[in-house]
């Protein structure tokens, strides 16, 4: 079976220059891989580095050591050292990310926010909007909100816009940072269903879920991030 993501001996620390240069190690020796159609859940207590790992996988955080290898259109790309334009290209076609919070752009409607990743890949606007509408409908976002920018939406409504935006493309790798945190039971079930659909299509998923019910429903494997604690590595 194909393995679209391999992480090898990745280490990360923050140096806080404004705090006398304190160096705060986050993770060390992170190594794992994710197969097509598999959902790996990052586990472990708060502050252990789960979100930092996801952000490194997305190129949002820099990587001090190690490799993050992705299968991008049949080519192997090391995201840890890739040029910005390569990272952007990988994000456009291979790597999706559902963040915990939506970064709102003033004046852009929810429907267009969801449609945008498809449009960026060359899908005509109307077609992209049709797909966006299907997803928002599935996630039970009231139709009268579709034409509004999500700035004034509730947390759960914003999160559903965010989920729809992340799930609309057929990216081969999808990162999920607590996508169900502020959703009610009905919508959590929709997300579980969407994840199952992605798995069936062969998407590799890596996620953080604090909700045990959701975690048990989607996880093929739970990776305990405490094992990558730099203190442990030093000991």
């Amino acid at each position, binding site marked *: 079976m194909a393995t679209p993501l391999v992480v090898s001996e990745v280490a990360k620390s*923050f*140096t*806080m*220059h*404004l705090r006398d240069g304190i160096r705060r190690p986050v993770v060390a020796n992170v190594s794992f891989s994710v197969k097509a159609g598999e959902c790996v859940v990052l586990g472990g207590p708060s502050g252990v580095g789960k979100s930092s790992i996801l*952000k490194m996988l997305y*190129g*949002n*955080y*820099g990587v001090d050591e190690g490799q993050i290898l992705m299968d991008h259109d049949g080519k192997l790309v090391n995201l840890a050292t890739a040029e*910005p*334009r390569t*990272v*952007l*290209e990988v994000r456009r076609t291979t790597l999706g990310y559902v963040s915990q919070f939506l970064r709102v*752009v*003033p*004046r*852009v409607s929810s429907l267009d926010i969801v449609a945008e990743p498809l449009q960026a890949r060359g899908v005509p606007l109307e077609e992209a909007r049709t797909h966006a509408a299907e997803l928002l409908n599935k996630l039970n976002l009231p139709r009268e909100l579709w034409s509004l920018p999500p700035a004034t939406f509730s947390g759960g409504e914003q999160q559903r816009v965010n989920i729809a935006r992340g799930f609309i493309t057929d990216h081969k790798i999808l990162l999920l940072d607590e996508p169900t945190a502020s959703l009610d039971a009905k919508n959590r079930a929709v997300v579980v269903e969407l994840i199952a659909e992605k798995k069936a299509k062969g998407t590799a998923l890596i996620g953080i879920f604090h909700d045990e019910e959701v975690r048990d429903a989607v996880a093929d494997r739970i990776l305990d991030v405490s094992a990558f604690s730099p203190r442990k590595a030093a000991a």
Partner: protein
Amino acid sequence: MSTLPLLKVNDVSKFYGSRIGCRNVSFELYAGEVLAIVGESGSGKTTLLSCLSTRLIPTSGIVEYHMRDGQYRDLARMGEAERRFLMRTDWGFVHQNPADGLRMTVSAGANVGERLMAVGDRHYGNIRATASDWLERVEIGIDRIDDQPRAFSGGMRQRLQIARNLVTSPRLVFMDEPTGGLDVSVQARLLDLVRGLVHDLGLAAIIVTHDLAVARLLSHRMMVMKDGAVIEQGLTDRVLDDPREPYTQLLVSSILQV
């Protein structure tokens, strides 16, 4: 995606006598890429922009541009006439103060039409039609086409300047603090407009700004300048969310949360 860079900048430095404007700057810019240059006043970002856009000749280093005929040309070795033609057609320059980029005493329509005439358009009807189309795109009412920009608000003037620059379908646009001096609601509208146009037209742009929120919203890549040198660069969200250099950390941590 084009595989050849539109602009190649190699080790560019500019000195004003013994004082440093900018030093040893190298990068490549590709079609469709938006690069933000950030840093505080006096960090050399405007000097660098001027060197790139041939408004200043660098003391050392080379800036090469990929012409429409597929050749790279060293901008400093280009003739004055050729350089001006490039600036009027293939490039745009959006100034912080719209009065520097507009002709304040001719009508809005003529401000846009003038660039079209520079590329050889002579049919009055076509020019006026294109001009009104562009005014609409930048959200200026068609009923204002015969008014002079003197009668426009700051935000409208800035939108008119953008229309004037984009009407000839340039491939590269330089912007110097495009939202400076506008109040925040006007800024948001302008940013959204610029973001949409850059995306729809596949423009490459270099934007000088001291506003990190503007850089976050508009740019793909970022360069942070201090004392004339580029101290950190990379993907915009990487630089803003995981700043590595002391000065970048100071800049990012100085943003007020609203």
